[in-house]
């Protein structure tokens, strides 16, 4: 009874019967489609056509639809194709597919020059929107800070402490490890190249200035953007997807106050701490390499360090840290709240959060460099 599907043509007087046999199911769909396409060429003939399905062993939606498709294409002008021999079992299925309207045209987007120009235009406008969104968020956060200062009880301490643990305490090992290694590398490279001029000892100056002013805080900020900025975006984004943020709003809570402020505050407190620890680790690593590789003993290293760097260098580094933290936090929260319904959107915004976060951190660093140079620090 089961077997490969067939569609035989049998002439009966002036009528043509198409006898369908075998299994008309999804597994045979490619064969069926070819047979039906062949049979469709009979359309336009003068004879009346019957599609005899009494011998079909098994029918599913695919088979039923193909029979219906055949019937439709054979029905032309006065000639109406009919389905005959339908068993009671399958008649409701065939009735079901008969109600299906022909496929609507599916729009396929084509790439045109105007389309590309439009895309570029939209992206540029979108950039302005990004900046506006960041300023908007900054304002909202400051307003929330104001509200919390007026009503200190509305401040969410538990949440802030929780985020402090996540972004600060748990980040310490990896930050210290990486800055330690960077300190080692800077010292090694410095000694390697300075040795040719007999200026080994100047590696301490370079290490001190570089680590305390720039590398320490910049490196830590970039790592925090990758580690915590992305986490913030993903958390807020998935809360947005599951309508949790809407739920908060309907209960009369301000999402900025409940979700964004504790995260921002945790980050603003965490980054200076991490930057300080990172700077210390880098100096330690550099000192270690200077001693073991460059032969600068620790006492000489510390003495030289004290001469080479002033407290200004340290202040310059530390002042930058909370500002960079705020930038990372704002970017991450804006991106998180911009997530739409799909998993893809969550991925895009998380990526954007990290990329924009790092970009703005470096831009801020440049702005600070100009500022400190002009005030002579």
């Amino acid at each position: 009874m089961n077997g490969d599907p067939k569609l035989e043509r049998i002439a009966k007087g002036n009528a043509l019967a198409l006898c369908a046999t075998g299994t008309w199911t999804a597994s045979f769909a490619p064969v069926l489609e070819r047979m039906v396409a062949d049979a469709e060429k009979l359309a336009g003939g003068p004879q009346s056509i019957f599609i005899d399905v009494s011998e079909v062993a098994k029918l599913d939606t695919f088979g039923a639809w193909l029979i219906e498709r055949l019937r439709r294409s054979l029905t032309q002008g006065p000639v109406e194709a009919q389905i005959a021999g339908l068993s009671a079992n399958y008649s409701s299925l065939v009735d079901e597919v008969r109600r299906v309207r022909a496929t609507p045209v599916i729009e396929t987007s084509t790439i045109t020059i105007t389309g590309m120009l439009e895309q570029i235009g939209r992206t540029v406008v979108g950039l302005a929107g990004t900046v506006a969104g960041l300023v908007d968020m900054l304002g909202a956060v400051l307003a929330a800070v104001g509200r919390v200062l007026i009503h200190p009880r509305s401040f969410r301490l538990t949440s802030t402490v929780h985020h402090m643990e996540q972004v600060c305490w748990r980040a310490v090992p990896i930050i210290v490890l990486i800055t330690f290694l960077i300190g080692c590398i800077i010292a090694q490279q410095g000694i390697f190249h300075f040795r040719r001029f007999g200026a080994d000892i100047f590696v301490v100056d370079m290490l001190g200035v570089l680590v305390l002013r720039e590398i320490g805080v910049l490196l830590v900020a970039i790592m925090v953007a990758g580690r915590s900025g992305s986490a913030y975006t993903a958390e807020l984004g998935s809360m947005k997807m599951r309508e949790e943020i809407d739920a908060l709003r309907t209960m009369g809570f301000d999402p900025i106050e409940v979700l964004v402020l504790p995260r921002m505050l945790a980050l603003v407190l965490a980054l200076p701490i991490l930057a300080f620890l990172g700077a210390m680790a880098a100096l330690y690593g550099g000192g270690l390499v200077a001693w073991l590789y460059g032969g600068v003993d620790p006492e000489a290293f510390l003495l030289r360090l004290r001469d080479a760097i002033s407290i200004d260098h340290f202040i310059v580094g530390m002042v930058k840290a909370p500002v960079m933290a705020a930038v990372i936090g704002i970017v991450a929260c804006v991106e998180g709240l911009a997530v739409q319904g799909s998993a893809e959107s969550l991925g895009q915004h998380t990526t954007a959060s990290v990329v924009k976060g790092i970009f703005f951190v470096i831009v801020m660093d440049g702005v600070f460099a100009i500022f400190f140079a002009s005030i002579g620090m």
Partner: protein
Amino acid sequence: MAQETQDAIQNPIIRVRDITVQFGSTRVLDGLNLDVKRGEILGFVGPSGAGKSVLTRTIIGLVPKVAGSIEVFGVDLDSSSTSQRRNVERRWGVLFQQGALFSSLTVRQNIQFPMREYLRVSQRLMDEITMAKLAMVGLKPEVAERFPSELSGGMIKRVALARALSLDPDLVFLDEPTSGLDPIGAGDFDELVRTLQRTLGLTVFMVTHDLDSLYTACDRIAVLGNGKIIAAGSIADMQASQHPWLRQYFHGKRARAVMS
């Protein structure tokens, strides 16, 4: 061939034996036995948190079990090869409680996803079948190009059903299919399940709380309690049962409203 068909009718399509599932120290299913016969619609009820969804997920292999065996289409899922298992998976469709549509694909792409993987058919046929499936689950063709985030809860259920049915499976698992549908929609849905069962010889394993569905759509009802099947049989058997939970369930205010 005839012999094989005969066997198929007599052998249950799902045979669950002594299944035990444990999360930590909580035993959710405890030596559970269940048979689902070919071509029937089995309604699966039980108090919230009794483990109805866990059983469904255990059968389809998403939850690991501590002990017991599961046979689907006569294939023991523990000892089967990858290709055997793939073959079984191709023949069942699953409707998850929350729909579980792929959020980055349109409705059309969601429904075509299994077809694309398992069948080699032209895009035209896939599009046409998609339209047929959408019509079957009572959705307009315009829905096809929308994303899941743009659909209402009831529409998500329907699209998820269309996706579960996209390969014309022999067996479908429906996890609370009518929850979140309006009563008319739920009634249509029951009717649809009945139609599909009649026309395609579909076997339906339906976790439900909808008394209407139990009365109108289900051939047989199984009740889960304390990690075991406490009763299985027709709606009349359920009503005759003296089990306290069953008495409350089938003779409560809501049940009487449905009956009248």
